[in-house]
């Protein structure tokens, strides 16, 4: 079992003819992902590595029975690509694009809530179910199939934790990068709920960071509804207020200081979630759960 993606996912890549799109499509296919189509306006009829390209997502989805898309479209055009994916409609949309204007995402999010589509991202590394399929830019080789779920706002931090897990022989059911933007589709609670309902996921590593209140909400959710043990990590303890720490969403608000690492760590601890001081400590906790 796994969440979000597996062997059966039929994937359309939006932006497949661009540099990043082309490169990562090849990586996804090599990993075993069933990429059935690409969608790029004006490029319909072409092929990329034998994968047929369509002018519209709608057409790609209809002709190739796609249910999932991965979006590599540049930020200025990404909101349009997301609207298009929601309208197709698809079951799952994974938006890799970093740097989508916040107000664009606000509108996409408004539309998203009227649909049954699950959006992951934007500004995320994607989703991987080791040994089955990966959507996005995660390096497949560091993952190993197993029974730990992973959800994270950050890309390389995820890799760091996964690398540590794998090196200790602990595999993963699915790893979900939910993205570092202030407005994202799937949040911690959504991903935790899916893992809770996945019988194969025996423990969960959750990597949060400063900004927003998603981790606090996740803590409330864990305390109230979850049986699967969770270990946490919060990046940005040393971040000054009012500064954007790389991710658009990683910012402690000035003055009042909401979105601090302290608040998140306290909330998680209150919910019985141990929070590691270092990535290794997170893996220690996970090992303890198994």
């Amino acid at each position, binding site marked *: 079992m796994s969440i979000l993606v597996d062997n059966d996912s039929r994937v359309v890549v939006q932006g497949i003819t661009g540099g990043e799109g082309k490169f990562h499509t090849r990586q996804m296919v090599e990993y075993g992902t069933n990429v059935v189509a690409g969608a790029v306006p004006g490029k319909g009829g072409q092929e990329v590595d034998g994968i047929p390209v369509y002018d519209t997502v709608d057409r790609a989805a209809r002709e190739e029975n796609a249910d999932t898309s991965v979006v590599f479209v540049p930020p200025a055009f990404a909101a349009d690509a997301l609207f298009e994916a929601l309208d197709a409609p698809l079951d799952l949309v994974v938006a890799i694009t970093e740097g989508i*204007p916040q107000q664009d995402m*606000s509108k996409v*999010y*408004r539309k998203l809530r009227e649909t049954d589509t699950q959006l992951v991202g934007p500004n995320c590394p994607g989703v991987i179910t080791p040994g089955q399929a990966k959507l996005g830019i995660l390096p497949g080789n560091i993952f190993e199939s197993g029974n730990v779920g992973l959800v994270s706002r*950050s890309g390389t931090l995820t890799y760091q934790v996964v690398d540590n897990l794998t090196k200790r022989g602990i595999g993963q059911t699915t790893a979900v990068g939910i993205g570092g933007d202030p407005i994202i589709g799937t949040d911690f609670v959504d991903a935790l709920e899916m893992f809770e309902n996945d019988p194969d996921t025996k423990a969960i590593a959750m990597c949060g960071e400063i900004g927003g209140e998603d981790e606090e909400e996740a803590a409330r959710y864990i305390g109230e509804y979850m049986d699967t043990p969770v270990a946490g*990590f919060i*990046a940005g303890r*040393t*971040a*000054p207020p009012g500064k954007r720490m790389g991710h658009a969403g990683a910012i402690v608000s000035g003055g009042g200081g909401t979105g601090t690492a302290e608040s998140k760590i306290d909330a998680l601890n209150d919910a019985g979630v141990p929070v590691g001081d270092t990535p290794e400590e997170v893996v220690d906790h996970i090992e303890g759960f198994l």
Partner: protein
Amino acid sequence: MKLHEYQAKGVFADAGVPVPDSKLASTVDEAVDAAEDIGYPVAIKAQVQVGGRGKAGGIELVDNAEEAREAAENIIGMDLKGLHVDRVLVEAAVDFVNELYVGVTMDRNEGEPVAMVSTRGGVNIEEVAAEDPEAIEREHIDPAFGMQPYESRKAVYEAGVDREVAGDVASVLRTLFQLWDDSDATEIEVNPLMITADGDVVAADAVMNIDDDALFRHPDLAEMEDEAAEDDLEAKANEYGFDYVRLSGNVGIIGNGAGLVMTTLDLVDYYGGEPANFLDIGGGAKAERVTNALDMVFSDENVDAVVFNIFGGITRGDEVAKGINEALESFDEIPKKVVVRLAGTNAEEGMDILNTDLVTVEVTLEEAVQRAVEYAEEEAQ
């Protein structure tokens, strides 16, 4: 990008939000001339982006040329909460009977903008929010429809704004929302919005944050970016296209990926050091970007040692190592000790390739950070 008060007020004025008469000055003489032109009383306000300027001595109210000169001499060149004051805004003082707070920001949990009004203006609104959240009326705005006029009225009436000025305040709020929408702002605040004895409404302060990711479609605002930057190094980072934040410590940090770089900062702190900066060089590690990143960090005179933490994902560790070697070799002399740690795909091959004459290599993140903290302590002594 956070605009300076004078920049934000210019934008407000263009949008039709009433602001006091004002002039920017960067010398004492300019400030006095401006004060004479505007007419007393005027406020002389330090143009640095920090809260609580007034309490910190960055704002003075003056009644004549002599006081204006004295105030300008005090403020121009002062160090205000760590920031150097280069410019002051000389502004007509507003004779107010009431101070309100109005603002528009993004509620990221809801993914929707929220308009805010409070009659508790003129004080730190975040303290008000913490102590008495009811004192701030919040109205969520549907991003698909934008602000409807009734929403501005509802916010203003529910906040308890006097009926005599409610219509004008609602109108200011609508203009601010429109401005928020039109300029891809992430935050707009007026605190205080002053109500004069005549019932006029005047924006006495102006905060405006623009979404960096949307600057590409606002060339007029993007032009303000250099002037808005608080720090030469931050301006340099804009040029190089790095996500960079300057801090006050002495351990320089370079890494890839926001979460991992933040974690590196946190570990520096955890192991007893003080981070000097956040610097994310992003995906890959081409020699040129590494060179630029090192240039940034070495340009910070506080830096005593550097830790370089790269997780190779799709980009293989051996390629990253080649980029780092090339970059390091381009320096005549490496001014401070650099610790490198590579992880992920082909990390071991990478570490074998690294030129250990120029850098110290460590295998784990924890070891690398500890080593850099150690070097920094040695260098600082």
